[in-house]
């Protein structure tokens, strides 16, 4: 059985990977262009006038957040659109009839999200090297936050894909929820700069914890305690995983 599941997972991972590589113009290029523009505008042109943030140049300060932003969007939209379009094309039936457990289906999609977001994250990092040197305070923290965030948003995208009834439904959450939360999550500023009230409000935004943890990995500065970053990530992953598992297992929107 284990061998069957392993082979099935590999096939699904290959399928998902092929998908985002096949449409690389839509999946890999846009985040690279967007973040490059951010680097140029905020880092180079405006950043010089902003001065230092927590002891780093503004450019250095925003790089981790920008990488994180592209990781979040990439993982989320990869899984939500892949799952939804498979549902839409009835292609998901290939998986539903096969002896593949729900866990394997879920990890197959998550691997797709992970792969694409890591690739995009790496490309963005590469581009950042044209502007600032790479520094890593804690590789462990960089990798852990990266992987966990990517898994979290892959699962969130999966949930979106399960509920989506139309292609619009797939783009609503990224535009109206994800993007605002990311912008307000401390990509461009440190939340300790905020007045107490807004600082408190920011703390309900889970993305704050991820960006803070990721930036800590690079620069060693934090907005919120590292432990909290890990706890929040673990918590959301567990919750989303359970909900998704239940919905697929019972066939919500998949089996009539």
């Amino acid at each position, binding site marked *: 059985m284990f061998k069957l599941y392993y082979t099935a997972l590999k096939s699904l991972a290959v399928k998902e990977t092929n998908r985002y590589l096949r449409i690389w113009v839509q999946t890999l290029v846009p985040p690279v262009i967007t973040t490059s523009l951010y680097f140029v505008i905020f880092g180079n042109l405006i950043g010089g006038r902003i001065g230092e943030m927590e002891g780093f140049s503004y450019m250095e300060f925003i790089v981790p957040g920008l990488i994180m932003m592209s990781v979040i969007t990439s993982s989320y939209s990869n899984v939500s659109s892949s799952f939804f379009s*498979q549902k839409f094309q009835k292609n998901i039936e*290939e998986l*539903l009839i096969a002896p593949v457990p729900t866990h394997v289906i879920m990890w197959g999609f998550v691997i797709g999200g992970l792969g694409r977001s890591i690739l995009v994250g790496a490309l963005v990092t590469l581009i950042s090297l044209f502007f600032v040197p790479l520094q890593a305070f804690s590789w462990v923290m960089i990798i852990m936050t990266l992987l966990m965030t990517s898994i979290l948003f892959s699962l969130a995208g999966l949930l979106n894909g399960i509920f989506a009834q139309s292609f619009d439904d797939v783009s609503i959450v990224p535009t109206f929820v994800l993007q605002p939360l990311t912008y307000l999550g401390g990509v461009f500023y440190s939340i300790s700069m905020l007045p107490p009230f807004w600082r408190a409000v920011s703390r309900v935004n889970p993305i704050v914890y991820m960006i803070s943890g990721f930036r800590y990995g690079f620069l060693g500065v934090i907005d919120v305690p590292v432990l909290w970053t890990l706890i929040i990530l673990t918590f959301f992953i567990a919750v989303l995983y359970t909900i998704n598992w239940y919905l697929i297992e019972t066939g919500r929107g998949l089996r009539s």
Partner: protein
Amino acid sequence: MSYALEIKDLEKTYKGGVKALRGIDLEVEEGDFYALLGPNGAGKSTTIGIVTSLVNKTSGSVKVFGYDIDSDLTRAKQQIGLVPQEFNFNSFETVQQIVVNQAGYYGVPRKEALIRSEKYLKQSDLWEKRHVRARMLSGGMKRRLMIARALMHEPRLLILDEPTAGVDIELRREMWEFLRELNASGTTIILTTHYLEEAEMLCRNIGIIRAGELIEDTSMKSLLSKLMFETFIFDLDTYENKPEITGYSSELVDETTLHVEVERNQGVNDVFKQLSEQGIKVLSMRNKSNRLEELFLKITEENKQEEDNNV
């Protein structure tokens, strides 16, 4: 005898209240070639959907080679290959990617899957197209792709939901030949169709579904013997006196078209003789090809009579 498929009292009510299946009992023996026949909306695809776990059943039980889909789903799934009624592959993937990945979902390692893909794609005449994206295939090729895909894990039970819809006559014959060989080599096959001819050509046993009920479950032979009469259509030349046919039930549908019901063993010679004697020229003759319709009428009538007798 062991069964490839055993369905007991299967019911399905869709959300919204459509009662698609009203208690189906069905057994298909191992090695059988079984046809599931029925008009649109009868419940064929629903039945197949439940067996392949694409549709949740409302009640009843399904066993595939003895594995209950409620308690032994993984094993049950492993036995089945499905060719669905509608195209459901990812049309942006290439032919070979589609079949190789599907094999993977059944635990066939990639290396082995590549070898098998050559075998089954060649058999389906798709090997030349293996690097072509599925959406570029013609309708008939797409259907053959779905058959190849279903065979990749070498299932013991192959279920085909209207496999020959949209396939041209020549290919249809090839497909029939291929399915016959597959059955001869031991694979149990169940197929749904709208064509009695197709079922007649291929299948040993047949079930007829109508409005969610299995109204007939018998061998092909005994079913055909029920079809005691056939309707022939005579195209007549213009005539002076209306034709009168005795000994047959007949109907003049329009000026020059005569329908005559001919019982088995009765022969048509006498019809010609009578028409010749009346000085009417027959321009052409063919048999009315809706035997399925006749069959349904016949069986429904029988059912009615039984019900009436029971009252």
